């Protein structure tokens, strides 16, 4: 977000920092004080008076122990978030230094502070990290993964992830062993297996760090997906290698059979993880099919099924990250077709929120752990580790790209290779894995080296990547939104290339993708998507989403606000083929029908203001717009909206007749409940213009399908509008919707209102 420019408050950042350090130290001090008196502490609710001496009734008592755990957790999270807030208030800093660096620095300060006051600083517990902090970030990344780019580059990503990580592990492990043999370094205690173990821990590119840095530099999608995809998929390799070396270091000897089993284990871990994730994903999609009556809990299903997928995979030592990604990817297209727009927004924002908090906490804890943990600094080891990591990464990327480019259509240029190599950041996963090491002899030295590498990559590479990207003029992310033309042509191109492949007899990429799509459409979608949406082609859903976005944007921009300039000057009449004499746009309706409509409208308008549903905490309530707005502003707004809406919304009436399951709800957040006037005009043209004396315009805009529990009168009115609209069908649907203003008879003007309609 844009940094707030508060020129008078540039000092607030450090003040905040100080404030929070105080809070945290207070928290720790309290903790200490309480634990000191813990022995004599009795549950306050059962204070016994058995001693006989009557104590006065305690008006105010103090019991910190009761809430200690949640209190401290909340305090830490609050600290993290306030820090994040603080960074954006200081604009200069956040442009130069990526947030991850700042957070680590804060962590260092906090850790130093806690240590200074003699407390024991908390460290990044591996269990906490792997079970609570990591999943939200991965789920957020996996759920919003750009599937098209990911699958198109899947081969490249897999090669980087698997072969690249293997190369890194063995190269680093081997070289470090060589370094350890140097006499002067006093590292003779470190054997080959430990070095390899160390190598595999430090070699994996970390998704958290990559996300944190790449998110800010807005790089081209291809590069982003390459580095990020690699960081996700290398989890399987890391898991297997880690457990492999752990087992070996206990067993002592390694045989060829063991190595062979290791390879098999790799396939089991990765494919098993994906399968577990896919199963949970399908379950989640299936569940979402039935949630049309309990919209409030829809987001929870997504979160819980994904988390279960992660935990289930971890039970069997499969790759939890791959399971989580598979679950999110599998679930998403079906869930999004089933859930309401509000749920979708909720899911998006909750995921972003949780992943943001997690990321912040991880970096802060990393800083704190650095200060806290016991260190064993060995100059040779550490320096060589950093250098060898860099070298191995560069060599790996160059070598692999050379091979990969033979198979790619769009080759990777030198610039791309540089960014991929430079973006190989290490992060908290390496730290946590290192923390789990059992061999305490070398553990501290390894941890120190790991922390140094992490710091180096995050600080040096993280800070310099942005200027480097600008210097090398690397292609940036396309800012423009997806337009309907691009979507049409994407689909068109897909079919075209599939067709050409068919003509050539070449069963390539597009052929299989097409087959998968058809399978998906014929079988899978029927099971997993509720109602009519299961047969909706992608182009149409894209169009509907676009339309809805524009409608909401329109309403939110409210009265007299700026329109997107690109479309303001051109309307449908410029594009429509001109016809010889433009007939009247309003259809003629029989007189009796007209009377009917008016009667219904009049009755309806009296009820609209009372159309509040009964309050229930579990319902998502939509309040119709009430009396606050003055009628004039109302009218003006309505006219504006009409004009604009007619430009964009060319929704045919048919779409409104889809069953109520469809949750495209045009009721905007703003509760501007515009009641559109039906285009009724008496056959005599403009004679029945409402009398200027009572221009109380209330119009009925009811584009959404009726909710099941609305009053029957409104339903009738809606149907009426549908019927009127179907008569429109003969005319061009997309001409300007001219609407006359009807006088609102209102409850107390019944007589007058009625008379003006007499034909």
């Amino acid at each position, binding site marked *: 977000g844009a940094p707030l420019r508060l020129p008078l408050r540039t000092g607030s950042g450090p003040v905040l920092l100080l404030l929070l350090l105080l809070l945290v130290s207070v928290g720790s001090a309290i903790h200490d004080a309480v634990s000191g008196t813990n022995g004599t502490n009795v549950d306050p609710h059962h204070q016994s008076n058995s001693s006989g001496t009557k104590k006065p009734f305690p008006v105010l008592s103090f019991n910190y122990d009761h809430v200690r755990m949640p209190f401290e957790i909340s305090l830490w999270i609050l600290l993290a978030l306030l820090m994040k807030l603080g960074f954006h208030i200081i604009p200069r800093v956040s442009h130069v230094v990526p947030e991850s660096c700042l957070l680590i620095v804060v962590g260092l300060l906090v850790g130093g502070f806690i240590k200074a006051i003699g407390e024991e600083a908390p460290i990044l517990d591996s269990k906490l990290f792997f079970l609570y902090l990591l999943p939200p970030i991965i789920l957020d990344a996996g759920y919003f993964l750009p599937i098209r780019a990911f699958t198109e580059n899947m081969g490249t990503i897999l090669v980087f992830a698997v072969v690249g990580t293997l190369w890194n592990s063995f190269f680093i492990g081997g070289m470090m062993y060589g370094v350890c043999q140097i006499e002067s370094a006093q590292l003779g205690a470190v054997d080959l297996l430990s070095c390899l173990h160390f190598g595999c821990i430090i070699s994996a590119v970390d998704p958290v760090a990559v996300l944190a840095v790449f998110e800010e530099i807005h790089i081209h999608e291809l590069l982003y997906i390459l580095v990020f995809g690699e960081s996700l998929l290398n989890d399987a390799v890391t898991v297997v290698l880690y457990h492999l070396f752990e087992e070996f270091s206990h067993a002592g000897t390694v045989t060829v059979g063991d190595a062979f089993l290791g390879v098999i284990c790799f396939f089991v871990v990765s494919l098993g993880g994906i399968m577990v994730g896919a199963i949970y994903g399908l379950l989640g999609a299936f569940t979402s099919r039935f949630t049309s009556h309990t919209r409030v809990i829809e987001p929870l299903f997504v979160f819980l099924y994904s988390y279960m997928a992660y935990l289930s995979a971890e039970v069997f030592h499969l790759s939890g990250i791959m399971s989580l990604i598979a679950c999110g990817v599998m679930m998403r297209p079906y869930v999004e077709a089933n859930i309401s727009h509000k749920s979708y927004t909720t899911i998006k924002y909750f995921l972003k929120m949780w992943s943001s908090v997690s990321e912040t906490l991880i970096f802060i804890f990393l800083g704190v752990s650095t200060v806290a943990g016991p260190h064993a600094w060995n100059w040779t080891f550490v320096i060589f580790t950093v250098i060898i990591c860099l070298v191995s990464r560069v060599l790996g990327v160059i070598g692999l790209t050379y091979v990969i*480019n*033979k198979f790619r*259509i*769009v*080759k990777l*240029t030198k610039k791309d290779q540089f960014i991929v190599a430079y973006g190989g950041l290490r992060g908290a996963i390496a730290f946590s894995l290192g923390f789990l090491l059992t061999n305490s002899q070398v553990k501290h030295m390894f941890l120190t080296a790991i922390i140094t590498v992490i710091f180096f990559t995050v600080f040096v590479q993280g800070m310099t990547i942005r200027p480097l990207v600008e210097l090398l003029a690397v292609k940036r992310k*396309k800012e*423009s939104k997806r*337009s*309907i*033309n*691009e979507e*049409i*042509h994407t689909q*068109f*191109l897909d*079919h*075209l*290339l*599939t*067709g*050409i*492949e*068919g*003509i*050539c*007899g*070449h069963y*390539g*990429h597009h*052929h299989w993708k097409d087959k998968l799509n*058809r399978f998906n459409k014929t079988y899978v979608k029927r099971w997993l998507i509720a109602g009519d949406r299961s*047969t*909706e*082609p992608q*182009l*149409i859903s894209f*169009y509907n989403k*676009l339309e809805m976005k524009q409608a909401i944007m329109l309403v939110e921009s409210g009265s007299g606000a700026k329109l997107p300039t*690109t*479309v303001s*000057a*051109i*309307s*449908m*009449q*410029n*594009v*429509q*083929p*001109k016809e010889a004499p433009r007939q009247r746009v309003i259809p003629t309706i029989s007189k009796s029908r007209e009377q009917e409509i008016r009667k219904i409208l009049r009755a309806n308008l009296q009820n609209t203001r009372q159309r509040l549903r009964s309050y229930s905490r579990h319902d998502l309530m939509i309040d119709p717009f009430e009396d606050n707005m003055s009628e004039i502003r109302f009218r003006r707004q309505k006219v504006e909206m009409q004009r604009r809406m007619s*430009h*964009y919304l*060319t*929704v*045919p009436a*048919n*779409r409104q007749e889809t069953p109520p399951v469809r949750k495209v709800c045009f009721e905007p957040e703003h509760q501007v409940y515009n009641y559109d006037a039906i285009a009724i005009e008496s056959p005599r043209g403009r004679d029945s213009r409402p009398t200027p004396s009572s221009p109380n315009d209330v119009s009925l805009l009811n584009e959404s399908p009726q909710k099941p529990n609305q009053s029957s009168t409104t339903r009738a009115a809606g149907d009426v509008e549908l019927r009127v609209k179907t008569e429109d069908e003969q005319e061009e*649907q*997309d001409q300007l919707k001219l609407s006359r203003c009807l006088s609102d008879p209102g409850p107390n003007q019944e007589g007058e209102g009625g008379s003006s309609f007499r034909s």
Partner: protein
Amino acid sequence: MGALQSAPGQPEYTDLAEKTGCPRFSPCVFSVSFEQIAVLHKRFKQLSHNEETLRRDHFEKIPDLACNPIRAQIIGAFFDKRNYRQNGEGSVEEIGFEEFLVVMSHFRPPSMHFTEEQREGIRREKLRFLFNMHDTDNDGTITLEEYRHVVEELLSRSGALGKETAKSIADAAMLEVASISMGHMEPDEFYEGITFEHFLKLLDGFEIESKMNIRFLNMDTATMCK
């Protein structure tokens, strides 16, 4: 297969190789290689049942094309003279291997060593192919009716729902093109249709040179001309 002028000093190329690689309007750097020509020739023989020319019914017999919604347009593109790089117009009833190859060569990927100008040339070529596919009456513009037809074909598998929405989608798309290309128009001005220039502008960010490629035409090609 038709005589073509061969540039002086070049070793013996087949006329085909030269023809597929040198569009009139941009300098050519490479073309379809010999191996690829051989592969395509084999396929041509297979499709035409060893005859000399291909007709539309040969294409219609290909089973993989049966469920393709834009089958008619794809087949039409092969018989469209505008795609033969000879500035011709209209359509033919049967094609020889030369024409087959020329049409297929539209799907070759740009080489890594291309300059920006050459990439631009390739991009224009591919977009021209797409444009010809949409502009069925050869008048140089894609009118609203033609665009509607395109979208209808794309949605042809979805029955009645498709037809109505296709109209709206095409209208919205046309509106967008008009806005991008014309900026501002008076209420009584009329936007005739999408010209090739507008089409280029519309799909500017689409990166078609990376997308509209068939993988097997990607074999490492030796540079043939220049």
